[in-house]
């Protein structure tokens, strides 16, 4: 509450023009306006649909890639340096290549989102698998659990807490990559709405969209993933039961 008050005061008594630094009331009004005429909902829906598609692809490719990196020396020797190297590349740097390959299309945006998150997911999965208690692996060995049953029933569940952390990280990477892509390459979505605000010299709209982007990111990260993570950690016995 106090920061909001200070913000409002600053925007009113500050030396800068009011329309360039609107206060929270003006921003809220702009959000309400955008929500009322449906622009915000449509843009958010569009962005989220893209995000879910790209993220699902990332998770479906990243987790198996991580397992292979951890379990197969062949794959590790061949791919690990590549994966670690490309991981250092900011995701938006994939965009020029994506446009060359796929043109100005949805596929390009998806490609950027996938490249922005798949490697982080793979590396976190590899770490999680490598960190599985060797005693659990030996127990599976002596109990005669092998093959698909071993991978699905022992290895993945044993690594799940770490994999979830990776999936959470991958989600926030994907969200950033998507916003960067939408800003540069206009095709509807929250990024475009942000650009739109700039073109209209409407700082309140820009800030309103920023707030919406933050809200969505926080909601998924802090609510969805946090709950999921807590449930898994509790079942696995990694945290105290709540009193």
């Amino acid at each position, binding site marked *: 509450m106090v920061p909001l008050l200070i913000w409002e005061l600053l925007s009113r008594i500050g030396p800068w023009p009011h329309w360039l630094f609107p206060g929270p009331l003006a921003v809220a009004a702009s959000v309400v306006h955008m929500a009322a005429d449906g622009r915000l909902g449509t843009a958010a829906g569009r962005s989220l649909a893209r995000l879910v598609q790209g993220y699902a692809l990332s998770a479906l490719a990243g987790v198996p890639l991580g397992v292979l990196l951890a379990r197969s020396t062949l794959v590790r020797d061949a791919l690990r340096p590549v994966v670690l190297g490309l991981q250092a590349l900011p995701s938006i740097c994939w965009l020029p290549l994506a446009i060359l390959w796929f043109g100005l299309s949805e596929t390009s945006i998806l490609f950027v989102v996938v490249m922005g998150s798949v490697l982080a997911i793979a590396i976190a999965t590899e770490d999680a698998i490598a960190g599985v208690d060797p*005693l*659990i692996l*030996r*127990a599976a*060995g*002596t*109990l*005669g*659990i*092998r093959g698909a*049953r071993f991978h699905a*029933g*022992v290895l993945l*569940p*044993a690594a*799940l807490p770490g994999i979830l952390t990776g999936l959470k990280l991958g989600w926030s990477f994907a969200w950033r990559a998507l916003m960067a892509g939408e800003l540069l390459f206009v095709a509807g979505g929250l990024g475009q709405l942000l650009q739109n605000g700039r073109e209209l010299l409407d700082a309140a709209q820009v800030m309103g969209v920023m707030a919406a982007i933050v809200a969505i990111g926080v909601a998924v990260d802090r609510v969805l993933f946090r709950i999921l993570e807590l449930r898994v950690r509790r*079942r*696995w*016995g990694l945290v105290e*039961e709540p009193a």
Partner: protein
Amino acid sequence: MWRQVGRRFARLTQAVRRARRSAGIGLLTPRVKRSGPPKIDVSRVGHRFGNQVVALHDVNIEVHAGEFVCLLGPSGCGKTTLLYALAGHLEPSGGRITIDGLRVKGPGPDRLLVFQEPALFPWLNVRQNLVFPLRARGLSRAEADARAREYVARVHLDGFEETLPHQLSGGMRMRVQLARALALDPAVLLMDEPFAALDAQTRGHMHQLLQQVWTRDRKTVVFVTHDVREALVLGDRVVVMAARPGRVLQDLDVRLERPRDPDDEALVEMSRRIRDELRRAEAAGAAEGQDARIAADGAAPLGPAPNLGAPL
């Protein structure tokens, strides 16, 4: 008159037998080699870890089918290392281990290792921890469920079927691990101090359970413990080991009738003697790696010792 002498003689021999028994004489004898091929053959096995620790040195143990062998020795004498080698989790750096004449290469369905720590799957509850490996062996869901319930009850954990491992005490977790091993019904059971974390009473129950299962199904059991009395209560044979380097000191047959009482005076006397022996081995090891042997019969030392204390 002859009858009277005969009766007196009989009474005298009985008294002598009782006295010998209570002094533990004749109940602990060097192992008599059995005929026929052994089930498990550990031959000249040595193991040196990467950090140059010699965990095992020239270990020779033959275990026949249906035998209950206790490996007894101080902490760090290589008991877990030897058991891991038998289970196929570790390849010893020297010597060979065969089971039914076949060289051990990795874990197999004929053997099951009960780990020193409760190696349960933390995301599965007690029942699922038993059902999962049973299903992997091809049992139907109904069969696996029934078997799981039966064995959970046999380790006195009924009512905890739906509990998660982290909600159990350490001793309860070890019992779940035992139930899981027994439910899978392997021909060879390798057990690494499974009852070290239990109170005396629960341990007594588990000893009974284990002996029941063993006498009924004639499993081959290799049971590691550092508790001398536990070894004497359970084992047909006690293999006494010493540390640094890990080696076999004594291989003894236990000639006590079953069921055995841990407070039986003969057993207490025998355990005292083995403890003395272990202490002497430790002192000798500290002095010069000199070999010490039990006069297991209270009489002459037991035949020639293999050159145990020899430098490596």
